[in-house]
């Protein structure tokens, strides 16, 4: 007899686990997920952009701070969660944030970004100077920095990291692109044991931010590079002792799928204001869990110290603040954006000989009035209310407010006004001629297209559904389609067969790092990829802005340029932005020295953070 019920119940059960596995993970890491697949280099833009971390504070008065002083701050554990296992501990080849989230505590760069001012500040380099022409940079390494196996850090390590790792063609380094300008690499040379000189082919404004690149130990890795095994070095099965960095913590133990433990690096170079050897915390434990829901439950039961709140969680988490002894912080707008974009690719698929997109649809999408009408049809207020429970920000500019200095708030803002959208469409010749309730273009074609988004994120599905519903009110027929994230990325980057997509991108402080999206020859210029020459005057202008911006060393002059870029983007709307999530974090109230910032989150100064004695 066929007994299909039990069998299918078993399947349903499996499916459920599977989906729970996937869906919140994407939702939470939407930005980072994307960055790991596409915007590879963002992972190194700063110490903490991706940290799913937050804020906490201790209102110690200054006097009690002094009284508590020196030695009794040591000890205790910080327990965090991550939803995916690191794939390796090799920072150079890592493309996934699950790895870099861990390695950023183990390795350090020459510079780092201040979490409050967003300015570059010294890290392994104690000082630097630049020649008058802006091409020669000399870095003076901090004296007395040692790797956590006791070997001193010298200029050789820096030269090794650049010349033999990043510029090594056999190593798929994700940062090589950034340190290569017009196909030319930097010349990196040792001056003496503690001085390194970089000679740039042309002026490169984001250079200092780029120097946050992690430096790796020559004495540990030289052999692997010489024998050609570097790509397989420092995998997840490596003995933790072999993984040597200069950072505040070192790897102690890793059990795949279970937990990862970092322990205090007693040889760390940094001292506190009072002269204490940092860091204070003796262990950082990452518990590996399946989903954000599990994280939430673990946080509420008190087994983890920190939880990144999604808008919808707030009403559940916030009321328990007193009872469960934690504090919720609203860090302001997040970096990652959500937007809708239209395919403007006029090219023909060389394999099939057919255009990537139906020419009649292309004629709508390349019409700026069409895109403006769409921009007027996005109900940002309700998206924030429904999707984020009120914790979100409308976005109009291509750099988010979290980018700070380079954010231009004075761009064209499109308010939610369906009548205006209809008017704009009517002016452009889109009217319902056939009387079926759906607009027709001037040539008489019914305006119908597909809108894709990744099905595993209920957040995106909701945003896409709200947008498509409004577009239907304006008179378009929209077929909403949730597909797998990787299929979606494939559509954008390789097969180019799509009409419209709702997706997100990670953001950063440095506008130049958006080059791969915005310049006409960018790898991720998804609305019209593979351009030989800029297709439109405004794309040409954006190319110019980026080319000038990268060579302009005066920050204020750079800002003028990038402000213009944001204005052009808002006028031409290759992507129509929707909303930004708020960064909300709940932290158990057991930490001292927390200095939350919008940019860095909480743990950006992990080495200074200590755990109050009663919680050790």
């Amino acid at each position, binding site marked *: *007899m*066929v007994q299909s019920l039990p069998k299918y119940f078993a399947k349903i059960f499996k499916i459920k686990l599977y989906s729970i596995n996937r869906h919140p993970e994407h939702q939470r890491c939407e930005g980072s997920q994307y960055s790991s697949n596409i915007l590879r280099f963002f992972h190194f833009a700063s110490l903490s952009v991706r940290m799913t971390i937050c804020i906490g504070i201790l209102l110690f008065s200054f006097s009690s701070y002094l009284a508590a002083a020196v030695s009794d701050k040591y000890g205790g554990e910080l327990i965090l969660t991550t939803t995916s296992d690191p794939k390796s501990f090799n920072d150079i080849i890592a493309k996934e944030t699950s790895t870099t989230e861990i390695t950023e505590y183990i390795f350090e760069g020459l510079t780092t970004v201040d979490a409050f001012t967003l300015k570059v500040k010294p890290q392994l380099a104690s000082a630097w100077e630049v020649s008058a022409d802006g091409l020669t940079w000399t870095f003076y390494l901090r004296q007395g920095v040692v790797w956590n196996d006791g070997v001193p850090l010298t200029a050789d390590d820096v030269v090794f990291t650049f010349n033999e790792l990043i510029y090594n063609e056999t190593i798929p380094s994700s940062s090589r692109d950034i340190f290569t300008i017009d196909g030319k690499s930097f010349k990196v040379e040792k001056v003496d044991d503690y001085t390194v000189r970089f000679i740039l082919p042309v002026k490169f404004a984001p250079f200092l931010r780029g120097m946050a690149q992690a430096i790796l130990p020559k004495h540990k890795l030289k052999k692997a590079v010489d024998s050609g095994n570097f790509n397989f070095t420092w995998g997840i099965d490596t003995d933790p002792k072999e993984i040597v960095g200069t950072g505040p913590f070192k790897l102690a133990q890793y059990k795949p799928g279970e937990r990862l433990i970092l322990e205090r690096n007693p040889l760390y170079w940094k001292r506190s204001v009072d002269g204490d050897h940092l860091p204070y915390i003796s262990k950082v434990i990452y518990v590996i869990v399946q989903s954000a829901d599990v994280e939430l439950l673990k946080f509420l039961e008190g087994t983890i110290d920190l939880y990144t709140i999604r808008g919808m969680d*707030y*009403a559940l988490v916030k009321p328990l603040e007193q009872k469960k002894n934690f504090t919720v912080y609203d860090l302001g707008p997040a970096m990652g954006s959500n937007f809708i974009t239209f395919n403007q690719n006029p090219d023909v698929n060389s394999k099939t000989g057919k255009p990537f997109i139906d020419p009649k649809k292309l004629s709508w999408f390349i019409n700026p009035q069409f895109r403006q009408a769409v921009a007027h049809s996005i109900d940002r207020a309700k998206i924030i209310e429904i999707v984020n429970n009120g914790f979100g920000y409308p976005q109009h500019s291509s750099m988010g407010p979290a980018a700070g200095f380079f954010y231009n708030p004075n761009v064209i803002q499109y308010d939610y006004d369906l009548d205006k959208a209809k008017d704009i469409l009517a002016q452009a010749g889109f009217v319902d001629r056939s009387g079926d309730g759906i607009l027709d273009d001037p040539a008489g074609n019914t305006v119908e297209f597909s809108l894709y988004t990744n099905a595993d994120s209920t957040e995106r599905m909701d945003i896409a559904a709200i947008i498509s519903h409004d577009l239907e009110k304006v008179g378009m027929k929209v077929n909403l389609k949730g597909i797998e994230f990787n299929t979606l990325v494939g559509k954008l980057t390789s097969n180019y067969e799509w009409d419209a997509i709702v997706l997100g991108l990670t953001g950063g402080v440095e506008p130049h790092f958006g080059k791969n999206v915005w310049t006409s020859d960018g790898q991720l210029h998804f609305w019209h990829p593979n351009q030989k020459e800029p297709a439109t005057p405004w794309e040409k202008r954006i190319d110019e802005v980026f080319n000038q911006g990268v060579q302009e060393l005066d920050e204020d002059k750079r800002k003028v340029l990038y402000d213009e870029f944001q204005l052009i983007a808002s006028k031409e709307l290759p992507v129509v932005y929707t909303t930004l999530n708020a960064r909300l974090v709940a932290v158990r109230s057991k930490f001292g020295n927390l200095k939350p910032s919008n940019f860095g989150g909480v743990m950006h100064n992990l080495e200074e953070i200590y755990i109050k004695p009663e919680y050790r």
Partner: protein
Amino acid sequence: MINDKDNSSIPINEFQIGLRNFKRNRLAVICVVILFVLYGIAVFADFLSPYSYRNENRNYSYSPPTAIHIAHDNKLSWPFIYGTQLTFNDFHKREYVVNKSQRYPIQLFIKGEEYKLLGIISCQYHLFGVQEPGRLYLLGADSRGRDLFSRILYGSRISLSIGLIGVFISFTIGLIVGGISGYYGGRIDDFLMRLCEMFMMVPGFYLLLAFRAAVPDNFNSVQIYFAIVIILSFLGWASLARIIRGMCLSLKEREYVLAAKTFGLLDIRIITTHVLPHTLSYSIAAIMLSIPGYILGESALSLIGLGIQDPYASWGNLLSDGMSIVRIYFAPWILWPAFFIFLTVICFNVIGDALRDCLDPLLKSEGKE
């Protein structure tokens, strides 16, 4: 019993015996009634539901089920509802404040959105509803303020029909393949059975996902619906074909098949008129028992967002809203579709079991030993 009086003297066929046995199974009869009601709801969904599946009001995000009052000023009154207004409390929790000054009586045969009854008759009347701007949510609202009750009714069209169509396709394939394979034997049999095994050896859900990935994603919703039906049918036919083939192997040795052969009947005729009908008692029970598989298969696909797409409703895609503990915590009513899936699946299984018992005397006697 009454039946005895009616039928005792008249010779009756096995189906009538089966039917009589079936009627004795109270539970199965109840399940049949429930299914009839559910399918009736599916057919008249647009009339029975107060709103259409895509009627949204974003001011009523996750509105709880609307309380229906029958007393006003301590006096009995025609059922009515109060207007509600969304507010966020200090913890950003959605709270719907009742506004007692706004009363909306529930009206029968109320004029609302236009629809096509049975797909042909244009009609504007709904069985019940309230005047705008009142909103009636019998089972609560989803994230965008769409009525869950209405969407469940509309969703039943997809969820319930997918089982029937799917089972029809896969049993047609199963019977043909099984019949041919069992009747001819030899190489054809080998080939067809290895083919079946290929389908059966891949874990069902992954095969489902693989087939789904092969569906072009520029399909519109109707095409996706049929694609899903066909995908599910392709998953289901193999196991049936194998069993039918086994039955045919023994049936083809029967004397009447031999007789038919000697009369020179075409093979196809022998298979369709002499062999396959004898597998029917088994097939009918198997059909009933396999329908839930299709319903659950569609739900599973829609649950992970790869099936029926918003704004269209199916029970599976309605349920996908409930995949987060936070949503369930604040809006437990979003789990209602699960109840309907459960009810339908149970009904089909009870009926299938009952049919199997009463159509297969051999099995029944074995069971009684």
